[in-house]
């Protein structure tokens, strides 16, 4: 646990990066963690070619894990192309958190990824297969 709630996680929780809503925005999606109901939304601004992320913000309340995960994930997105976002591996998102995530908290760690996928590919975005992610497998 002391492994899970490392100082940088608690810092991201208390002072999340990229929190809020971008207006205007090109992409927007909101979703919730079905196991707890926590909701998160994301807004993205794209470049003129509508190909790359210029700016991003997330909003919503949630636990330290989901907030830190969103804070850390959104820090990475600027400059990435939509194709790169679509190809993102949920396992990498979890790994980038830098703390050990067990099955019970996996959806918390993946909520930001799920919302991002929703913003990029729409409502058909599915939760990644948990067993695959935990086994270090690739996207669903």
């Amino acid at each position, binding site marked *: *646990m002391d492994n*899970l709630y490392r100082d940088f996680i608690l810092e991201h929780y208390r002072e999340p990066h990229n929190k809020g809503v971008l207006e205007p925005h090109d992409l927007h999606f909101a979703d919730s963690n079905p*196991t*707890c*109901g926590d909701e998160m939304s994301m807004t993205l601004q794209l470049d003129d070619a509508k190909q790359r992320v210029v700016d991003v913000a997330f909003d919503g309340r949630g*636990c330290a894990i*989901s907030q830190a995960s969103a804070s850390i994930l959104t820090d990475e997105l600027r400059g990435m192309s939509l194709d790169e976002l679509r190809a993102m591996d949920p396992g990498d998102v979890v790994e980038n958190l830098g703390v050990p995530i067990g099955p*019970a*908290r996996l959806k918390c760690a993946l909520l930001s990824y799920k919302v991002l996928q929703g913003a990029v590919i729409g409502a058909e975005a599915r939760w990644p297969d948990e067993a695959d992610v935990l086994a270090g497998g690739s996207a669903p």
Partner: protein
Amino acid sequence: MAVEQLRRDVFDGSALRADFPVFDRPHRSGLPLAFLDSAASAPKPRSVIEAVADAYGHHYANVHRGIYELSEDATARFEGARRAVARFIGAPSDREIVFVRNATEAINLVAFSWGRTNVGAGDLILSTQMEHHANLVPWQQLATETGARLEYVAITDDGRLDLDDLRARLAQRPKLLAVGHVSNALGTINPIEEVSRLAHDAGALVVLDAAQSVPHMPVDVTRLGVDFLALSGHKMLGPSGIGALWGRRELLEAMPPFMTGGSMISKVTLEGTTWAEVPLKFEAGTPAIAEAAGLHAAIDYLEGIGMDAVRAHERFLFEQARDALAALPGVRLLGPESADEHAAVLSFVIDGVHPHDVATVFDHHGVAVRAGHHCAQPVMARYDLPATTRASLYVYNDLDDVERLVSAIRATQTLFGTA
């Protein structure tokens, strides 16, 4: 009841832990397990586990149809379990007990069978803001499919049913009131005798979700005056995969079946089918046979303690836990203050820490609690909370567990720097 008197009724929960193998399991924290999530599902005593194993090992065959020793034996035990359930909840007849998977299926059965037959466009159905999704979503579905209206009885700031609101809505003469006996999200014990009387005066039937009451206090369907009652075996020390619907016989007899197939028919031809008598009419296919034996053993175990003693024990622990939480800064308990109206289900928030994080920190201290919306999202919305942490107590808990809860809260606050 004075605390003095309560103390006399109180037994030593820790002594019962020896009956439950799960407490022998080493916890990764290295600490003994403080199990405070019985409202989600309860551990099983050895007698239940052995009853299931014995049923599978020595008394197992399909029921109702076999003309041989083993099947007669299995059938007699299965029907014996039905009688035990009937007796446990004061049902006038064991023919009024329908075995189902869980309380959820019991309520769905009523919504599909009674609901689809008796509720039409424009009719009013009442549920409450306090319900578990199991006693709310099936009624939403019924309303959507039939064009009926669904309204929710309001709850007060301290988590009680708003009886004035109930009266006002009953004045519209709803067909049915779906209400929980004990709220799993707030701990509230609803005054069901009074609620039933009001509902019946208004011409409404009462469907009681007793998933959280039957395991924890004496329940008598006749005294409560309800028309249907739903329970789950797994919350009352019994097996998963079995629960029961009780319904008044004349209601059950007038209802069409829900699921159809083997065992529930009287005669099948290619042109049509007639149904068996209740309760078989509602039990399509092979039931949870060994699980019924386990449920019977769970009832025996609880009756061995006595449901009055179970309630007194939990009431005492609740009062201790409530008072201990009240003394902690930054901690807020939901639901009514009085132990008369509050079961041993403590739903609380810690300022500045999300319940998910609370539960994870607790887990590392060997304290198992639930965090989330407790399948009662409208309750969370009512109090504008994303979620709560819930500690729920049962027969094997004791004052040590209450202390473990308090220390875990303190440790969480320290870790998150909120204390």
